[in-house]
């Protein structure tokens, strides 16, 4: 889960390996806010698998690559 200067740098780093998924840093920030925003809340409870999947879905991160077990 790495941050790159551009998609061209991702491709160079992969060096022919099968790519995973690439999203913008703006989308990453939205994902981080949704995923981690309650992590220090006094009433924190563990996310269920469906809650986490709902976060991904809501941000348009759908399809087999983004499907949790």
């Amino acid at each position: 889960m790495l941050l790159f200067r551009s998609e061209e740098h991702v491709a160079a780093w992969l060096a022919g390996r099968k790519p995973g998924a690439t999203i913008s840093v703006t989308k990453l920030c939205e994902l981080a806010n949704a995923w981690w925003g309650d992590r220090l809340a006094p009433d924190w409870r563990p996310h269920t698998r469906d809650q986490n999947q709902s976060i991904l879905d809501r941000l348009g991160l759908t399809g087999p690559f983004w499907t949790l077990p």
Partner: protein
Amino acid sequence: MDEADITLRNLTYHRFVELGTAPSAAEIAAAMDSPVEVVRDGWRRLHDAHALVLDGDARELRMANPFAARPTPYRVEAAGRSWYGNCAWDAFGICAALHVDGEIRTECPDCRTPIDVAIRDQRPDDDGLVFHVLVPAVDWWRDIGFT
């Protein structure tokens, strides 16, 4: 996960925030006025529930996601303190968890050029950067250190 484990988990996280680094099992035991093995037993249950990650011999913390117990390429400065994130997602997650602006310092894994990105009002100040996830979601916890 029962209430006692949630209390242990919350105390662990809040000490991590206060210290800027991972609390030891002994530090948490002292704060709870409990034997250290009570802390380690609770941490093992939390590890199994993916609520934190222990090191190889399951005695001390490796991750209290998004916070990293070991130095990583993702340094985060926020609220006058600094922490390491386990990965790029976690680095942004530290600002998200703290609900503050911050600065993330890393480097491009390809060309090693330094990357400094600021978070202001929950948004990055450089929208040209990209985030790559190599491992599909179904396998994220198969080897969380690699992921």
